[in-house]
């Protein structure tokens, strides 16, 4: 039954009345104004672009923040009077970045990159863009909810942005917002208005994620075109589907953690607070447990890592297969490993809490479950490498970023095996080793997945190509730079250098790293500057890039390339194409590729 049929089958309406929910199945063309086309759009492709560009704005802001705090770490004695003129006294005093500003920068950098860039910017963009196009649907199950999802994200962005401008500064207690720092206004300047705004922004963000996630799940399960069985779906869709499931099940738990935090902050309850002395004053709160927040936070926090990583994994699988001109190796194993990761994601949260006084026996169970994640991860890496093995590799920019992702995932994943051990974690927790691990495996790797996706699907998004020279420069400097920034941090962490310190030069044990810190900071600035190449390339090419003339520029099998070069709202002008085979018939029977829409021949076996 087609989507139209599902949406209207139970309708025995005498006169069909239009409401916002019911009119998207058709292919009639609305008269679109600027507002309905570019602002309050219900077209999944436009919403995807809105998510992408908002995510890019946040990536620039979050990246700039890291440049600022790296400036402090690399050059603790230098003075920057010009920065004071630019940013004002809260941020820079006497030419030096203030301690309060440093913590605010670290906190906001983390929050923004994890949630606004790598969750909203990554799965918001590609789930919106690819799900309907790759499963053969005219739009999402509920385009209206989809629009709301973006605007809640936009509202969250505005509130978070506004927290940068309040007098006491943005929240500065770390992106994990552990109480009591996050619960008590008197704990630090950032815990006052900044924290209130942080909580409001995050609550709005959770709503946005849930609205989006519900829609992605409903769309994947209900709106597939004829012949698109679950096992014919491209791996991108599988990955985005599991991502949405993780989000829908774990964000509400974070939300309940936030609710209790709000009560502690504003209504004098003691869920998380007990036995506190602030500035010599004894607080009346009794019997609360700060660890309780950590349980609730990390029950989301750990799945969140996979919410960030899975979309990148899915897109990389698709891009590797397309550009190696080979079927993905082990398609079912790829789905199975995604599923295993999604399940395990919920069972490992306490590995963030090994040193909180957790029962060592319980800890050992979490060690076992954590290390089990290595199994599906290794399956994925093996399959990516075997997909590349003896392929006719085309090194497009998207392909390079996809290979870069695999490289980073291996390097970062290996240190995960170290950190997953509760015994090793006693030494390594809260050191630069952790920073190095999660930046490589989750941060930079997912960023590479995002870049791979943008370079690969840009022709579909804007009907133009990106400039290749800029793209290759962008890739090489970013890849080498990422390793140069984060590799040395492993050594610092092993030497016991703790994270979140304002100035290491006053510590006898860490003085030796002064030059290494300066080196890391310098590379960080170069890598940040290189991202401007990408930004220029992106925006310039929207208007001036080489036009796409070939409907299927990469020779792909999937459905999005059967739509017109610049698809309208509804994606396909005529009937939605029917699917006859899986998405990975590359190099089959002497043919370069066989699109999913081609019926299975008499002498072919079924997939």
């Amino acid at each position, binding site marked *: 039954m087609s989507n139209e049929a599902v949406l209207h089958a139970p309708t025995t309406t005498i006169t069909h009345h239009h409401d916002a929910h019911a009119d998207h199945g058709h292919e009639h063309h609305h008269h679109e104004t600027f507002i309905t086309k570019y602002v309050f759009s219900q077209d999944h492709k436009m919403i995807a672009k809105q998510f992408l560009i908002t995510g890019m704005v946040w990536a620039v802001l979050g990246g700039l923040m890291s440049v600022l705090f790296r400036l402090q770490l690399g050059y603790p004695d230098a003075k920057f009077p010009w920065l004071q003129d630019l940013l004002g006294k809260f941020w820079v005093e006497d030419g030096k970045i203030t301690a309060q500003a440093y913590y605010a920068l670290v906190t906001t950098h983390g929050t923004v990159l994890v949630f606004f860039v790598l969750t909203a910017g990554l799965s918001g963009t590609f789930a919106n863009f690819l799900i309907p196009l790759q499963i053969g649907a005219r739009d999402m*199950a509920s385009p209206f909810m989809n629009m709301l999802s973006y605007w809640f994200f936009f509202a969250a962005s505005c509130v978070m942005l506004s927290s940068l401008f309040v007098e006491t500064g943005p929240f500065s207690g770390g992106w994990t917002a552990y109480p009591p720092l996050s619960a008590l206004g008197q704990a630090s300047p950032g815990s006052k208005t900044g924290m209130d705004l942080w909580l409001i922004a995050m609550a709005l963000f959770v709503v946005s994620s849930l609205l989006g996630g519900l829609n992605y799940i409903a769309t994947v399960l209900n709106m597939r075109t004829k012949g698109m069985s679950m096992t014919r779906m491209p791996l991108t869709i599988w990955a985005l589907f599991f991502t949405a499931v993780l989000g829908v099940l774990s964000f509400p738990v974070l939300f309940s953690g936030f609710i209790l935090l709000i009560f502690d902050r504003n209504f004098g309850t003691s*869920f998380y607070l007990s036995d506190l002395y602030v500035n010599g004053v004894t607080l009346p709160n009794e019997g609360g447990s700060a660890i309780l927040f950590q349980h609730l936070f990390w029950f989301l926090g750990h799945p969140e890592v996979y919410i960030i990583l899975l979309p990148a994994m899915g897109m990389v699988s698709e891009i590797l297969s397309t550009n190696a001109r080979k079927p993905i190796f082990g398609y079912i194993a790829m789905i199975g490993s995604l599923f295993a990761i999604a399940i395990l994601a919920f069972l490992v949260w306490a590995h963030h809490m090994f040193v909180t006084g957790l029962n060592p026996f319980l800890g050992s169970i979490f060690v076992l479950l954590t290390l089990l994640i290595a199994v599906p991860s290794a399956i994925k890496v093996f399959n990516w490498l075997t997909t590349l093995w003896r392929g006719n590799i085309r090194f497009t920019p998207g392909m390079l970023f996809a290979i870069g992702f695999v490289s980073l995932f291996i390097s970062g994943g290996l240190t995960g095996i170290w950190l997953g051990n509760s015994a090793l974690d006693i030494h390594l927790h809260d050191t630069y080793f952790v920073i190095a691990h999660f930046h490589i495996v989750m941060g930079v790797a997912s960023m590479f997945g995002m870049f791979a996706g943008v370079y690969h699907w840009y022709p579909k998004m804007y009907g133009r190509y990106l400039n290749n020279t800029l793209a290759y420069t962008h890739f090489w400097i970013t890849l080498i730079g990422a390793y140069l920034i984060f590799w040395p941090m492993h050594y610092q962490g092993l030497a016991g250098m703790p994270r979140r310190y304002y100035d290491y030069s006053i510590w006898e044990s860490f003085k030796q790293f002064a030059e290494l810190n300066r080196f890391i900071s310098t590379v960080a600035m170069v890598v940040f500057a290189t991202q401007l190449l990408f930004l220029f390339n992106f925006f310039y090419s929207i208007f001036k890039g080489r036009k796409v003339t070939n409907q299927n520029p990469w020779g792909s099998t999937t459905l999005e390339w059967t739509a017109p070069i610049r698809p309208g709202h509804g994606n396909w002008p005529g009937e939605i194409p029917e699917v006859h085979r899986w998405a990975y018939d590359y190099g089959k029977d002497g043919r370069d590729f066989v699109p999913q829409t081609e019926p299975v021949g008499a002498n072919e076996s079924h997939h």
Partner: protein
Amino acid sequence: MTTVSSNEPKRLHPHKFTLWVAMGSICMMFAGLTSAYIVKRNQANWLEFALPKSFYYSTAAIMLSSATMYIALKAFKARERSRYKNFIALTAVLGVLFGVLQTLGFNELTSQGIKLLGFGSNAAASFLVPIIGLHMLHVAGGIIALLVTLFRAFGRKIKSYNTTPIEIVATYWHFVDLLWIYLFIFLAWIK
């Protein structure tokens, strides 16, 4: 609209499906809160007290409202419009009554000297506010949905016999009812 042959098995309407996923999501939120409750309960300084009587009455009210909702849906399907309107309105009224009784329950606790919020409050009592409060917000959402359905039933000149919107409201209403029964048993049993 394209004409389609519907010889394939009938699939769930996407909006209904979305509701089911959303209900799963809401369950996770309350699972988070109730597990936090259990974790907290196993630590020192936990106050034990009996639930107020009003909560028993509110449980009866919301269970009754599920029955009226069921009758309303049946009436809609049988195209008995006035019966449908009456029972939808009755359901909404019972929903409001539920909210009132919950609030009375909080007052009852306060008058017994159990401090819910503020300094000196015990987490055992404080937990009731976010848990029951969030549930009341979900009921309020249901009441708004009922009112919208009701106004549509009165206001529309062209009659719609599409059962999907009312079925979605009904499913959600039964869900908040079941959710309350779970929370009630949980709070009454584990104290």
